[in-house]
Structures are given as structure tokens and as C-alpha cells.
């Protein structure tokens, strides 16, 4: 399992283009990300060697969450739901109506006033956490509870494939369940098919007489004569050419 992962990392490493400077800046960014995690101090001391390790950590050990505890079979997953005030439209983001669901309904947890939730007695393995809040769409979260590392938890958003450094879940978007009534808008009416038709007719009614005025009456008479001479168009000319 691990060797396969390493192989993938190598591939990724070789494929990823970029100058040394590029790598350095990326390293800085990574360093910033990892400052909170336990790995950070070691990595900072040997930046060049750590490069590969960092790539690994980015890909696979994306997040090492300190908030987990427990023995072999009863780990605890603790996380937090945060709804930014800016995304709340119309719906009051009431924590009392939010549910956090583990593995499609195996366990249901509720939020504390500060937004924290906990799942108790979770066996080691790969789990799925979903947050249901009316008015918001949350990405499901893949949570790996490690058996070897005393229930260490890693989390990844399955929708965006973004890994989380800490289990703080934020909505991907706010959901608006109703259509909004368009305010009365003249332009919208004119742009609609009906409006275009009306516009054309307006042109015909108001502008055609003006155009007609400009035409020479003599010429008009001649055209009418010509049309009369042509006679009634024959049926054959109306039919499309047979294949």
C-alpha cells in the first residue's frame, strides 16, 4: 500500500514542472500550512530533504488532526461546523437544526452552541461525514481514522478533493430554494420572444408608412405591373426538389 503511494509521489514529483524558485515558494506556502501540525518543526530544519516528504504530506498525510483520542476500537472524531456570516442568506444559521451524519446514518450527532460535534466509539477505518443544514450545501468529508497511530484522523473533502488541516467544515455554497421574482423590468420584456415580435411589428406599423412615402409612385406602379405579369406561381415551384 505504502510503496504504491510512494511510486505515485515520485511520478508526481517528476511530472510537476517548475524552477527551483518555484519550488521554494511552494515550500514556503507548505511550511505556512503545516505550522500548526506536528510535523512542522522537523521539516523546517531540513528544507531540501523535506521537499519530497512535503509532497507526500500534501498528497497523503494531508492533515493530521490532533483532536482524536481513544483505544483500538473506540476512537473519537471531533470537528467543528462553521458558517461564515456572509454566506447566510435568508436562512438563519441556527446550530440547533444542523445534523452531522456519520456513514450515511450510522450515527447522528448534533452541534454544541460553539459549533463543535463529536462522534464517539468510531472504529479505525475510512469513514464519511456529512453535514446537513437547511439552506447550505456541505461537501461530504472522507475521514481516515488510523489504527496504527492511535486514532489519528485525516480528513478530505470528497467534492473538491481538498484536504483539511483541521476538521472545520464550512458550506460549499448557500442554497436558495426559491426562484426569485424578477422585478418589473421593461428591458426583460423587450428581450423576450414576445417582445421581439412586438418590436418588429412596431417597426412595420410605424416605419413602413414612412418608407412607403419615399418610394416613387411611378416605380411602385411598375413593380405592381410586373408582379401581375408573372401570374400565379405554379405548384411545382412551391414544392421542394425531390431527393
Amino acid at each position, binding site marked *: 500500500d505504502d510503496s504504491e503511494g510512494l511510486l505515485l509521489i515520485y511520478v508526481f514529483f517528476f511530472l510537476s514542472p517548475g524552477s527551483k524558485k518555484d519550488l521554494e515558494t511552494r515550500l514556503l506556502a507548505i511550511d505556512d500550512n503545516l505550522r500548526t501540525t506536528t510535523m512542522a518543526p522537523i521539516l523546517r530544519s531540513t528544507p531540501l530533504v523535506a521537499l519530497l516528504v512535503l509532497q507526500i504530506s500534501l498528497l497523503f498525510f494531508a492533515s493530521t488532526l490532533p483532536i482524536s483520542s481513544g483505544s483500538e476500537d473506540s476512537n473519537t472524531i471531533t470537528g467543528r461546523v462553521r458558517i461564515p456570516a456572509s454566506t447566510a442568506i435568508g436562512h438563519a444559521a441556527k446550530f440547533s437544526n444542523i445534523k452531522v451524519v456519520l456513514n450515511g446514518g450510522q450515527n447522528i450527532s448534533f452541534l*454544541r452552541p460553539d459549533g463543535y460535534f463529536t462522534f464517539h466509539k468510531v472504529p479505525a477505518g475510512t469513514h*464519511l461525514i456529512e453535514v446537513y443544514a437547511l439552506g447550505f450545501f456541505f461537501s461530504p468529508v472522507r475521514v481516515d481514522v488510523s489504527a496504527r497511530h492511535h486514532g489519528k484522523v485525516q480528513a478530505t473533502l470528497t467534492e473538491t478533493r481538498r484536504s483539511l488541516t483541521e476538521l472545520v467544515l464550512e458550506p460549499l455554497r448557500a442554497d436558495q430554494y426559491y426562484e426569485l421574482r424578477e422585478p418589473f423590468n421593461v428591458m426583460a420584456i423587450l428581450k423576450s420572444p414576445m417582445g421581439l415580435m412586438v418590436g418588429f411589428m412596431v417597426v412595420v406599423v410605424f416605419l413602413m408608412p414612412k418608407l412607403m412615402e419615399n418610394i416613387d409612385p411611378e416605380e411602385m406602379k411598375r413593380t405592381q405591373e410586373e408582379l401581375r405579369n408573372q401570374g400565379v406561381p405554379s405548384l411545382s415551384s412551391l414544392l421542394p426538389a425531390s431527393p
Partner: protein
Amino acid sequence: MAMALRLYLLLIVFVSSAIVSFSLYEDQVGLMDWHQRYIGKVKHAVFHTQKTGRKRVIVSTEENVVASLDLRHGEIFWRHVLGTKDAIDGVDIALGKYVITLSSEGSMLRAWNLPDGQMVWETSLHSAQHSKSLLSVPVNLKFDKDYSILVFGGGYLHAVSPIDGELLWKKDFTAEGFEVQRVLQPLESSIVYVLGFLHSSEAIVYQIDSKSGEVVAEKSKAFPGRFSGEISAVSNDKVVVLDSTRSILVTISFVDGEISFQKTLISSLVEDSGEAEILSPLLSNMLAVKVNKRTIFVRVGDQGKLEMVDSLSDETAMSDSLPVADDQVAFASVHHEGSKIHLTVKLVDDLDTVLLRESIQMDQHRGRVDRVFINNYIKTDRSNGFRALIVMEDHSLLLLQQGAIVWSREEGLASVTDVTTAELPVEKDGVSVAKVEHTLVDWLKGHILKLKGSLLLASPEDVVAIQEMRMKSSGRSKLTRDHNGFRKLFIALTRAGKLFALHTGDGRIVWSTLLNSPACARPSGISLYQWQVPHHHAMDENPSVLVVGRCGSDSSSPGVLSFVDVYTGKEISSSDIGHSVVQVMPLPLFTDSTEQRLHLIADTDGHVHLYPKTPEALGIFQREFQNVYWYNVEGDDGIIRGHGMKSSCAGETADEYCFTTRELWTVVFPSESEKIISTLTRKPNEVVHTQAKVSTDQDVLYKYVSRNLLFVATVSPKGAGEIGSVTPEESALVVYLIDTVTGRILHRLSHQGCQGPVHAVFSENWVVYHYFNLRAHKYEVTVVEIYDQSRAENKNVWKLVLGKHNLTAPISSYSRPEMFTKSQSYFFPQSVKTIAVTSTAKGITSKQLLIGTIGDQILALDKRFVDPRRTLNPSQAEKEEGIIPLTDSLPIIPQSYITHSLKVEGLRGIVTAPAKLESTTHVFAYGVDLFYTRLAPSKTYDSLTDDFSYALLLITIVALVAAIYITWALSEKKELSEKWR
């Protein structure tokens, strides 16, 4: 004329501004849909009636709901639906502001804020074994924060701080053979008594210091004989228990830790005694025992001496005791007498002192009283008043106060098990049920208001008026059939065995019936079928439904059939059929002269029985005898068996409506690699409009439409558990399509690294199913469409002209089907509880999948999104046909949630039924809540929407006519003046 044209143009501008609306606007909520909130059958109730603040009652229910109800009106202040495995064991109020719930067999303790239901803290308690779970919130806790909540569960006694849920101490009681029976904490005492039985023959009392959790003292005493486990705590130092013969009451007193037994023969208390049973109510110094179908009250004296003080008839429900003023304790009992119930509140110490006696008229269809909870209040004359919350046999919840029912809640509807639809009666001439709008002026006024609303020119008052007008719009809730088939009845069968008819217009209960049976008191309902639907013949008969039930919970217990008139809700007849019910099969297309539908019922002996038991039905059945096949699924063994009819079982019994069957085929799944987790067939009454499907390149595909297809999903035994319990390598999901007549496997599709649960929907020639992909760690939805290959040759026009096609050839299940399938998979970002599909009258309208998500919302997803013909870059022609470019996951568009901003808490099923209008379908979703709406998957193409402004049309016409006349007059005038010139 130019003038007329100009006016006309202006009017067109005006008309075109009334844009037809498609999806739901916020002000349209409640026009076509309704939503009802329930909580389920109440298990525990705690009153909170302090002087300040609103009076409420906290309840926990069998649907795992904890809720706070308004005591005045019965409305829900807040509620929480816990997980399905999180059954509530106890509920109480602590510190006067927290609701404490104990759930999951005593391993989860939560505190909820009393006013708004916000969770305050949550504590997971250690549990090592299955045991009783007891929640004890000391009374003192209301005043003194030094006390802690005592919880026994999983073999451990825990003390939890009520403020933050911190675990103060825990004590291990998991010793072999030791069962904790009671945890008692006397008032004003810091000692907790834990009483338990060792091997049911030795009583042990532990005295534990409530501050530290240290065992202060431990006393035990062996009992000559065995205890039966049922126990009643009568006071702080005494309990009464039955011995294993159930004929001796043993009083165990443990004053100061010294245990003493005192035996009393029940026969010494009552004369004709049999086996006794201790009833659950907690009374102080008193005990309720059920002997010989009577309830006797036994007073426990100071020395443990027992004496009988009263006896009541069997049908009595009792409440726990309640302290009233002056150190007195009262309790309530309710018993039936005819159509009335009598509520009596007495003092425990003095049964002759009746504090309250009330008689209340009670609906027969609520059954008996199941539970009683009482609460007292001080009246203005300083005497005690009582209110009683009662739970009836049909699960309804009622509040009684001052001899009347203050409010009632039909909580039976929180546990709907089966749903069917029924038509309303036809409106007869001269019988006008609801009034239509009065005058033309009113009508016009209404429509002008609507017009203003749609142009957003309405003032707030107008908006309110419009909303009100729409809500009670003409005949929405009439009790007669309408032209479009929008008014219908949904017949719902509940777990309590009650049948409800709900009106689609406003969701009100038209009638309700509690099922009765001559064989047993209350049969449990299993399923519902349409029995008689007159539409060609027998028009004077009322339609009826068949309710299949059984006496008892075991599948071999005898079945009961009940026929209920749909118009009136009256039970026409009820019969005890004398055999068990395993499977009920409505025979398609077989009806007798009174349009009763033929049904076959299979029993545990492998026989099938024909209903109705009439010679005519038998005649019809005999004609088709050879063509009747059925199958059964033995999920545990992984076997599917197909059966055919063999002969009448006249040899064994004299019953000529009983038939034996022969086994035709079996499909056995290898038990070590596959386990059946889901089976599904098409809805038998589904209508398919066309068999042919023309694709863009003038190619014709023929749908393989067969009623005998069975979808089966199996998963590796390891993967049958929850997500997270298996690795992708260990689990595989395999789906099959099996012909149920021949047992032929038509298609097999394997998904490696996937697992259930599988939620599927089968319609026309396609199956859509939802499962979990372990590799991607995402949910997936797969569509499989089945096409008929044998008809694919019928493309040439000449073949059709010369009659060399096989379109009219008879279809037989025995002919080898030449078919091919197309399938495609997509990711889906949510867990799913159930999937349904819309159904319309003729099957012309395109379909929508209705996906009930784990968030208890229902998402309508157009079938075009799950079309195997989707490609990454559809050609222009394909785009014109409506093929959507392929994406890796299915979109969730918030506006297509048909439940909009509502939730159908505890969603369990979605039922769809066609309206008469082809474009429209009824959708009914049930769970703890009920939700109904009307959907038009392809918009209402065959009717004007409700928003259509007739007033505008009328005004336009009038204006046009006027304009014509005016311009005509003007042009006349002009001509005249020109002539004068």
C-alpha cells in the same frame, strides 16, 4: 386601422409581461403542498409548568424524537429526531433549564436547552455489556447544583455533572451474573443505593457516596428461591419484587443497609389469584399488581407488610405518582366505559379521597388508553387542578383538562407503514359542496389583485390578501372528484393498525378507522391494496381497500383481512382467514363483475389462497391457472425461488380456493461471496406510453418492457455492514436482472470496491440505483436501460408496409429474449434514504427521480440526467434531442428540492400517483413528518397555470373591441372630412 394596431401592440406588451412561472416562488408555498409535523408515540413525558415562562411538556417517543410541546395548544416548540439506533431510554429536566436525554442503551447522555432545543453538552458513557438503562435526575437538582445526574447503563454507574456534562465518577458493576435493578438516592442524602440481584437469587445493596463514587458499604443476602426480575420501588428503602413462580410478592427493605425479606402470598391478598405481574407506575408506598385481568393496589406498610386496598378492572391505565401540596401524593387512573373515559385522581395514602373525577366523551377509533401522565396546577381558589396527558392505543396524544380535550395530536401518522390512493366521490347534480366565487365583480377583483401581484405592483396588504385568496381558492379542499384529478385521498396505514384518509388539497384527515378483528383485539397492519375500484361497471358501489394484517408479530400467526369503504371509512367486513400471510399478490388485470380485484395470498405452508372467495373469481382464476407465476426471495439464505400453480389443494383440505404450487426454478447466490441486500420490481400499475424510442440518427430502439423483471442487488458478506467497516478490495456489489417467470438471469453487472446500502428505483425499461463506491469514497448512481434486440430489425418502412415485421408477434417469457443494455454511472454527493419516480396517467410526460436525501429533503432529478446516452460532447442533433453533456457527478440544484425549505423528518418512503391531467403527478412522502405536493415534471403543458390571469385576458379583449370601435369611428370621421374637403 393603424391606430387599432398601435393599441393592440401596447396590449401585447402588457400581456407578455405576465411571464409564466416554472419553479417555485416563495409566495407559492402552500398552494399545492402541505406539510405536517409529528413526533410519534410518546414514551415519556415531563411537565415544565413553572409560574414564569410558557408551560411546556417534554416528551420522548418511539420514533426517537425528543420534543418540547406547548401545553396550551399542543404545538411543537422544538424537536430533535435522533438516529435510528439511538433509542431514547429516559428523559428528564435538570436545573430547571436543561432537558436531559439518555439514549443508545444508556451510553449517550445529552442536555438540551429547554427554551430553544439547542444541544448544550453531550457525554458518551462507557458501556461494556447490555443491561437496563436507568436515568435518575435527583429532585434536589432543581435547587442545588451539588447533586449530580446518576446514569446506569452498560454495566456502569456514572455520575455526571448537570452543568457541563463532565463525568464525575463511574463505578463498575459488570461482575458476572450481577444485574442492577434500581438506583435510589433518598432526598437530602449523599448516599446512593444500588440494588441488584446476583444470579437472580441473591440481593445485594451497595451504598455509594454520591460525591466520590466510593462504595461505603456492601450488604448481601441470599434469597431462598429466585426473583423474576420485575421490580417496583415503593419507597427510598423498600422495593417489591415477584419471585419466579409469580405468586409471591417479596418486599426487600434495606434500612441502613440491612437487607430483610418479607414474603406475601398473592393468594392471601386476593381470592382467585393466578400469575401476577407488577405494573410499571411508580407510586409511593404503594404497588400496582395485575392479577387475573384485574389491577389491584397493594399498600406497603412500614414494616414491609402488604395489604390490598383497591382493585380496578383490567382496562385501566395509571400514571406515576405526583406530589401535590402538603406532602401528599396523588396518582391518576383512566378507565373506559362505553364511549366515555373516566379520569380519576386519588391520593395514594387515602384512596377514598378523590381529588378529581371527570368523564370525557372519547372517539371509539382511538382505542383504549395506553399511558397517562399527570400534572397539577393551583387554581384561583387555591385548590389543586389536574391536567392529564394521555396516549391512546392508536398513538394519538391528548391533553385533558377540566373535563374536556384541550388538544389532540394524531401521532399515529408518524409511523405510516403503507400508503395507497383513492378517488373521491363524483359530484352529483344539485349537490354543491363548496361555494364558488359570488359575483363577477368579486371574481374580477380577485384576478386584478393577482395581476398586480404578478407584476410586483401589489402593496403589502394586497400581498396578504392574494395569499389568503390563493390558500382558500375555490374547491381546493372539496370532498368530490375534480376534472383534473387533483383532489384525491391518500389512504395511510399506520403501525398502530389505524387507517387514515388524507385529502390532497389541504392534508386534513377525512376519516380514520382503527382496525378490529373477531380473532384478536388489535391486529397489526401489514399492507394495503386496492380492492375494488369501480370505473366501468358497478358504478353504484363505493371503492374499497383491502388491509392485510395479522394477529401477533410472528410471520406464522394467522392473518386478518379487512375491507374498508374509501368514501365513508367504514369497515365493510373483517375476516379471520385462518392461515398465515407471507406474501400478498394482487393479480393484474383480473377483476370480477363487481370490479373486485383478485388477490393471491401465500402462507407459510407453500399454499396460495384466492380472494375474493366467490365462484366467479374462481372461474376467472381457473381460466388463467396455467399463466400464474410467482416468486419469493429468501434473503437470509440467498435464494430466489419461482413457483407455478399446480393444483387445488382439495386433497388436503376442503377449501376449493386453496392451491398448491410447484417450484419452477431457483437462483442460489453463493453465500460466501454474495448476500442479497435489495430486491425490486416495477410498480404493477405503471403505464408505459410508447415502446419505441427514436434517437437522433433516425434509429429506433425498442424498450424491453416486461412486468416480470426483478432487480436484485447482492454484496459481499463483509461489505454488508456500515461504511468504514470494509476495505475496497474486500467488497463488491453485483446487480442482476432476473425474469421471474423463467428464472433466467438477463443481465449481470458487477461493481468492484462498492458496497450498499442500495436504494433503487425500477420503471419502464430502466433501473437507477444508488450505492457507495469505496475507492472514490463517494456515493454513486448507476442507470441500466434494457432494450429489445429482437425488434430492432423493424426499422425498414417496407417491412412494415408488407407486414414482415414482428411487432404483432405475441410476447412470451419463454421465448429467448434478445436484449441489450446500456448503462452509465455518476457520482452523487449525498446519502440517500429512498428513491421514487414520478408516474403520470398515460406515461407520456417525462419522468423525474425523487431522491429522499439523508437531510430529509426530496430532490427532483430529471431522468435526462441519468441517461446512458449522455456523452462528453453531444452532437448538435443530440443536443436538440435534449441530451445533456456528460458530467462525472449529478447536479444538485437547490431550486429542484420539492420540499423547498422544509424537511420531512425521519423520511422513510415516497409514494407517487398520477393525476387525471397527464402532466401532473401527486407526491406523498412519509416519515415522522408528512409532506404532499403536486409535481409537473415537464411543466403543466396541458393546462393553464393557477397564475394565469383571466382578468387580463378579459380586459385585453374588451380593450381591443373598444379600440376597434373608436378607431372605426375616428376613421369614418376622417373620411367624411376628407370627402367634404
